[in-house]
């Protein structure tokens, strides 16, 4: 845990890989040099430079920013895999193909927990099939295997770099950090930079084995790709329904190594239980050792084995009741847990221009962290310099629980209140704000607007 906290992971925004329907597959034999060139020629025609225009909320205002990343076409009709941090919040996306043509694309879906997004190229103006890459089997990758990364580092499209698999199952954190609770990573020393995000990591067979997504800030030759076997399943769900639903029971799992004397015991340690969670309701407690979940034996001696168990739980159909067998004080007990839906990674955002602030939905986990009795309120995500909220010293992170004496239930009710109040052109608006255990009254006062003054 300590290591994970110290590790600063940066997102590398980038590109793609392909093997073509229209591209003749080259022979994958001969010397490493020949195979490298063949692999590049097989995949590069399917690599795209992804150029989304994002709508972001910065310093209390909604703004548009251009972004650059990479992606890889995986079907002749133009489905593209990229990172969610490339495609999320995009108002529009253009992809530059290997042919240097710009093609508009739509965002089919994003999954922030795995950092995967699917785009669909709009080929209506082109009327043609596009070259696509073939997905490989990431489980077969061994440390030392040659891999090539493709994409648009710093916007330099059609860049290829070479390296080896440096680690096949790198563990980069857990649910609290929001970093990949459900999978481990392929680590490579192939040069990966900002702009490479979303691009393919390709093996010597010319197949995509990973999606390049992260680098370690301040380090050299430490890039991380999402194994393509993780991507395949997410991709299918995104194409089917535009989102990935997951189950949640509210246990923080720890590897068995965390406790003395358990080296020989198979199972996974419960380090903690979330408030208002199915696991708490079912009677599970910190210190329990889960040995089976829904009839499937589970075991994590080392932390690298945790993501698979997290995924097993997440993949349970939402609302299904499962049996969990756990050891407590050496005695086996069975708990019946009905899973709940895993909440959003991050809530929706809203700009309140008149008040000079942006707010974000309070998610379930945020509500628990803030010790709210239920999911309620909105959290201040930005404050515009010179605006009423800024003048009233409202700060990012404060939770607004009420407006003019009315309780704020969610983003929608906040928006309704905001619109009604701004329509009335009230001089003063009172917010009930909370930070940690402290609450306070924040009075917004309309600022003088020169443009609205009659000469």
């Amino acid at each position, binding site marked *: 845990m300590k290591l994970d906290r110290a590790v600063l992971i940066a997102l590398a925004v980038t590109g793609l890989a392909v093997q073509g329907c229209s591209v003749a597959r080259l022979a994958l034999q001969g010397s490493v040099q020949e195979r490298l060139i063949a692999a590049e020629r097989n995949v590069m025609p399917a690599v795209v430079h992804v150029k989304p225009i994002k709508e972001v909320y910065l310093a209390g205002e909604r703004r548009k920013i251009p972004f650059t990343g990479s992606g890889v076409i995986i079907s002749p009709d133009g489905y593209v895999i990229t990172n969610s941090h490339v495609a999320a919040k995009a108002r529009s996306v253009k992809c530059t193909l290997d042919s240097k043509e710009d093609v508009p694309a739509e965002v089919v879906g994003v999954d922030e927990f795995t950092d995967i997004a699917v785009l669909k190229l709009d080929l209506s103006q082109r009327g043609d099939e596009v070259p696509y890459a073939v997905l490989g089997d990431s489980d077969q990758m061994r440390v030392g295997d040659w891999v090539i990364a493709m994409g648009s580092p710093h916007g330099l499209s059609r860049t290829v770099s070479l390296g080896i698999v440096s680690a096949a199952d790198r563990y980069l954190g857990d649910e609290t950090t929001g970093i990949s609770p459900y999978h481990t990573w392929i680590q490579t020393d192939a040069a990966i930079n900002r702009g490479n995000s979303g691009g393919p990591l390709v093996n010597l067979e010319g197949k995509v084995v990973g999606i390049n997504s992260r680098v370690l800030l301040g380090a050299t030759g430490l890039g991380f790709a999402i194994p393509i076997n993780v991507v395949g399943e997410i991709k299918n769900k995104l194409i089917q329904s535009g989102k990935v639903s997951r189950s949640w029971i509210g246990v*923080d799992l720890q590897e068995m190594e965390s*406790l003395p004397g358990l080296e020989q015991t198979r199972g996974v340690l419960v*380090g903690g239980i979330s408030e208002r969670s199915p696991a708490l309701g079912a009677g599970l407690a910190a210190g329990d050792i889960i040995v089976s979940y829904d009839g499937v034996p589970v075991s994590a001696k080392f932390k690298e084995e945790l993501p698979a168990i997290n995924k097993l739980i997440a993949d349970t159909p939402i609302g299904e009741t499962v049996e969990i067998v756990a050891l407590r004080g050496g005695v086996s007990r069975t708990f019946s847990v009905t899973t709940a839906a895993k909440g959003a990674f991050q809530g929706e955002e809203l700009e309140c221009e008149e008040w000079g602030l942006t707010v974000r939905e309070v998610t379930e986990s945020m509500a*628990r962290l803030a010790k709210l009795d239920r999911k309620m309120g909105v959290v201040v995500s930005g404050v515009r310099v010179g605006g009423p909220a800024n003048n009233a010293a409202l700060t990012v992170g404060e939770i607004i629980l009420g407006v003019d004496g009315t309780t704020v239930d969610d983003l929608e009710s906040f928006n309704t209140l905001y619109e009604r109040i701004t329509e009335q052109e009230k001089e003063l608006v009172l917010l009930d704000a909370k930070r*940690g*255990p*402290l609450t*306070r*009254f924040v009075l917004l006062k309309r600022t003088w607007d020169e443009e609205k003054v009659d000469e």
Partner: protein
Amino acid sequence: MTSSRCGTRGRRFATSAFAVLVAGAVLGFGAAAEPEGGANATFSPEKIREVVDRFKDALVTVDYSTEYYDPRAQRNVKRDRYCTGIVVGGTGLIMVRGHVSLPDVKPFNVRVRLPSGEQYDATVLEKDKRINVAFVKLVNRDTEPDLPFITFVREPSLAVGDEIMVLGVLPEALDFERTFMLAHVASVIETPRRVFVASPAPSFGMLGGPVINAEGEAVGVIGQDLARSEGGEIYIRAGYALIYTADLFQHLIENPPTKVPEAYLGVFIQPLTDDLAQYWGLEKAGGIVVSTLIKDSPAERAGLLRGDVIKMFDGQPVSAKEDAEARAFMRMVRESGVGRDAPITLIRGGEEMQLSVPLEESPKTAAEAEKYEDKQFGLTVREITADYVLGADLDPGTEGLVVDQVERAGWASLAGLLPGHILRRVDGKQVTTIEEFKKLLADIKERKPKEIAVFFERGRRTGFLRIEPDWEE
């Protein structure tokens, strides 16, 4: 006998402060040169010499050492320091800048160096919270000399434009020679208490030095407010040299501060600004708005509610419209004494009403909390105090021990324990008091287990980790 050793230690410190101090010395002499130009008549060269002669033997330097925790280095750091002091009483009472004694950094190895170079052991007295000055007292009455001391004017008056003289001590490189500077009173700062700003700004050697008026009387000292992290009130004012006039500290010279229990209500407050008053339809006359009510506090028991506007406390009207005035109210509560009830007049829902609140002693703070350091485990733990419960947003009434420090590469640190980890169970046992913890560690040291399980809480999550002691170490 100790003077040569102390000198060496002092010199080490002096190197780091050298640039600042030399700059200050130059400033001082620069200012002194001014009257000779004839531009200024208040302090003639004769008068300056007379003032310096009269006060210089009451100026001393105080050498001391401090130890504090550096969270980045994960270890305690020790530093030698010194400052200017003024002898203010014939009983060996010396006034110094308040930074000598901070809540988290207690001075030790305190010695007073007289103009002759002789050094005497001294001790730091309790510190008053209202004004950032500290007092040290010589400890050995048998050997200490009779010291000349400075008497301050009882009710000094300063105004913008007044010319003043500030006396101070040069750094060790300049043999701790006495020096002075001329300055003008440039500004008056009214809240939270009236202090003055001098121009040019006094330099380091002048901090803690006396301020002399045109009549040649001592009217105050050069001080510096504390940063909020040091227990001060206003963060942004830290670091500015201010003139504290004698009315702010004279009572402390006469009755050196002792520990007085402070009262608390258990509320967080904000001022009733005119805008808030307008919004609520109240008179724009200021007041104290209860913004947060702490559970199980005297205020809650007395029936106060969030949103109440306090107008009178303990017979005194309160009319805060600004943050500084709200802070003055908090001070008023702290200093109102404990063990009785205080009447409160407040406005709730537009109606005036009366309540009576019990004045209880403010709970212990983290700085006052009992700590225990175990060198073998490389771990210092601290009782969880009420302020920590609030700061970390723990459940009200949470008791137990929290990791205060870990030693770098010590057993605790290697296991992953960090400052802020709350120890819920150690070796399977609940530990809530320092005593229990000491006993448990003693027992563990007896048994010498290969591994020790720790169940911790941090940031609303719990988890396990294990300490692997190296008993052979």
